[in-house]
């Protein structure tokens, strides 16, 4: 259902664009989100650490600090409303020398000033008490730092926004924008127009700003690679373990981050690149393992089951921490009613709800906004078979036998969960889209077992031709058709 012309068009369905969409759906506004990929959260929002930072890494008085702390408090509430995985597990930033200790103290001070809660400097004895496998003299203990699933967070925002009337257009790459009182936004498939234009295009937000007539921004892509370990069933670590941030200010340093599903992320690296390539490199994969094993030697025991990467949209080619650049979240100085959201690197995930709120205020200052009385803030939890008790499992299978059939052996994902994922409200049918929604294929065999099963269901029960099944983007076809027609 297309409500062209729109009040607001959002370009980009990453966590930022989707948070904006959901925030605006609380008001009587016609909103559309245009996304070039085959699914939401296919950009930076899928390739990060998934940390809800507490707010001590960012300088006082900046937009980064303000949106981070505000977002930090908003996310648990959103998790309760929308039922995406959120765990407050805490973090240790560790150090072994006096220089490090002063850095830790500096971080704590910055955090306290930013309004960040639950920070404490602890020493060896306390460290080995709470994290026996971590050897360090000093640590900044942040009890409140949390982890989320970044893509499920984004998907949850989308599904709720959809329910509250926002239109999403996937496979719509914006290629041209012009303004004649209102905005005209041309995608590869269609033309849309609207009063307001929100640029939430992540890595490409400088390009979108340019298309819209504001040429004042430039992004420097900075890649971060990761390794994913198998599940840490023995609980080698329970919290995030971070080093003192490196002096170049480009990153927080290679850290060790448990995920909401029990795996551990090792990374990221920081490498300025002159394209948007997401490849993994031998050099960084090896270096990151070394860095991580120095902090927690026992991690060596966990097999690596996956590697990936993400790209930071930096506003400066940073060399030192002094090269700080803040988020850009503003109405363009040259193009009225264009709201630019540019340079949203870390802590962008944590800050997303607060960024959406800022955007709402910018619009609210110029428009009379009326509340959407039908707004429904809640989305029910979808069954997650593995986390149920024996009694609940019995009950669920009795109600729906599809929950008695395993599709993914590594993650114990049932056909019931797979079908829920395939039937997602956005209609995404890519293998990665299905994987992110139900975890089939995310385990140690990386789809070796479930891919044939999922393919069979897509072909037999949904009538999708083998040659049309995509991994993720267009051209990522899995197969060339049938062997014998």
């Amino acid at each position, binding site marked *: 259902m297309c409500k062209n012309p729109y009040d607001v068009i959002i370009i980009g369905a990453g966590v930022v664009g989707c948070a904006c969409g959901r925030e605006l759906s609380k008001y009587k506004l016609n909103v559309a989100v245009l996304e070039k990929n085959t699914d939401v959260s296919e950009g930076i929002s899928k390739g990060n650490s998934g940390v809800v930072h507490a707010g001590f890494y960012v300088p006082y008085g900046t937009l980064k600090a303000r949106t981070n702390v505000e977002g930090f408090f908003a996310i648990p509430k959103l998790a309760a409303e929308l039922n995406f995985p959120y765990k407050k597990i805490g973090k240790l930033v560790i150090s072994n020398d006096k220089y490090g200790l002063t850095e830790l103290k500096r971080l704590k001070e910055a955090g306290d000033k930013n309004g960040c809660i639950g920070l404490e400097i602890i020493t060896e004895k306390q460290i080995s008490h709470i994290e026996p496998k971590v050897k360090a003299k000093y640590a900044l203990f942040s009890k409140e730092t949390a982890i989320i699933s970044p893509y499920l967070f984004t998907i949850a925002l989308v599904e709720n926004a959809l329910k509250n009337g926002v239109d999403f257009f996937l496979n719509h790459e914006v290629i041209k924008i012009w303004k004649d009182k209102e905005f005209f936004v041309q995608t590869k498939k269609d033309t849309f127009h609207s009063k307001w234009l929100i640029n939430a295009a992540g890595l490409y937000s400088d390009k979108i700003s340019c298309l819209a007539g504001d040429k004042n921004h430039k992004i420097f892509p900075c890649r971060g690679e990761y390794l994913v370990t198998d599940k840490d069933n023995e609980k080698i670590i329970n919290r995030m373990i971070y080093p003192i941030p490196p002096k170049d200010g480009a990153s927080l340093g290679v850290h060790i981050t448990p995920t909401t599903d029990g795996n551990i992320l090792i990374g990221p690296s920081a490498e300025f690149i002159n394209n948007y390539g997401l490849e*993994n490199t031998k050099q960084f994969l090896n270096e990151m393992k070394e860095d991580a094993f120095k902090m927690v030697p026992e991690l060596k025991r966990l097999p690596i089951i996956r590697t990936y990467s993400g790209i930071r949209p930096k506003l400066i080619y940073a060399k030192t921490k002094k090269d700080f650049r803040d988020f850009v979240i503003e109405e363009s100085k040259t193009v009225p009613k264009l709201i630019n959201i540019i340079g949203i690197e870390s802590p962008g995930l944590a800050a997303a709800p607060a960024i959406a709120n800022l955007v709402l205020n910018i619009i609210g200052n110029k428009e009379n906004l009326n509340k959407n009385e039908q707004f429904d803030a809640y989305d029910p939890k979808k069954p997650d078979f593995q986390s149920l008790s024996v009694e609940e499992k019995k009950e669920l*299978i009795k109600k729906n*036998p599809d929950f008695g059939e395993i599709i993914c052996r590594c993650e114990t994902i049932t056909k019931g969960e797979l079908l829920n994922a395939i039937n997602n409200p956005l209609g995404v049918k890519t293998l990665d889209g299905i994987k992110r929604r139900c975890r089939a294929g995310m385990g140690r065999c990386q789809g070796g077992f479930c891919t044939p099963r999922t393919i069979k269901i897509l072909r037999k029960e949904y009538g999708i031709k083998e040659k049309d099944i995509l991994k993720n983007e267009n051209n990522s076809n899995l197969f060339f058709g049938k062997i014998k027609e």
Partner: protein
Amino acid sequence: MKYDRFVDLVVIGGGPAGLSTAISAKKNGIDDILLLERELCLGGILNQCIHDGFGLHLFKENLTGPEYAQKQIDELKTLNISYLTDAMVINLTKSKELEFIHRTGHKLIKAKAVILAMGCRERTRFNIQIPGTRPSGIYTAGTAQNLVNLQNIKIGKNILILGSGDIGLIMARRLTLEGMNIAGVYEIMSYTAGLERNIQQCLNDYSIPLFLSSTVTEIFGKGRIEGVNIGKVDKDLKPITHSERFVKCDTLLLSVGLIPENELSKKAGVKITDFTGGAVVDSELQTNIEGIFSCGNVLQIHDLADYASLEAKRAGYFAARYIKSKQKRYNRYKINFCEKIKYASPNYIVENKEAIIVSFRIKKPAKNVVLIVKDRENNILVKKKFIRLLPSELIQIKLEREVKSDIYLEIE
């Protein structure tokens, strides 16, 4: 706990090992057996192995995978052994309680003994951390075998195979027969991982090129894979600088090793050895958890289904004896081995009067060597000459004499 059922013996997995072990336990006097298999039909990995070469040892016949499995399934049915397919065991405890699920419900059972026969899974590109992009068109050889043989799917047109494991070799032939081009089989070692007979029958007979001491150093392609860099390695497996060249392909198959699937075993506290990825067992194939036995590919990777079945037959016999006698565990001796041997299984010997079977794999190919098995007093228990020993072959030896101390396997 309220159990849905009590059973004497549960067999987890219905591949050649599971079928064979259940049959053997039944023949050795256990009537109350339940075999659980998560696939829709029995037979395990053999259902997708439509080529021949199975059964030469067990049935003295040359069979295809499904034919081999069918013989065992028929026997299972004749013996009235109860089984359930589409039933996945999701939990196992050390007191031998099992949770499994099936479309008809979730069941909790308590067993006197359990035999693990869950088979293995394949190593992925991420396990060996091949750098580059992460496009579509990269499959493990076994997954490709499933898609091609069971689902009639054309996985690619120009296919490069990394690793010379047997499944990769078999797939090279299979895909060639279906009209696809094989851009080459690349192996990092200076010798092949697959069986000699498969090199001949699957590659040489079809003029498919094999490149040794070569590996994929980077993957290219956005969307679908477009090619890889191939680099040469020296004898320490270190990449040789400037040896890289780009090879075009639209599909990459990986045949780079199998991993015993022991996640369930670990839940029950079964000890796993790093040498094989399988359980630590004694010569009766019993794990460190009393009453839990292990056999087939979940114990150690077998190159032939026949050997998996034969090992499983013994596990069934010992499990039956355990159930009937409930005997306390005997003294155990350790099996040690020299540097040249990659691993030997079992890890311990139970003091008994019966012949003991030890299997081992060599690290590097060797010619004209002698295997010597000694006890602590340097008495020679076995001495056997080999004209050639290959890492791809799992060698089995029989110790006929009673063993009364730790033993040592040596290659000279």
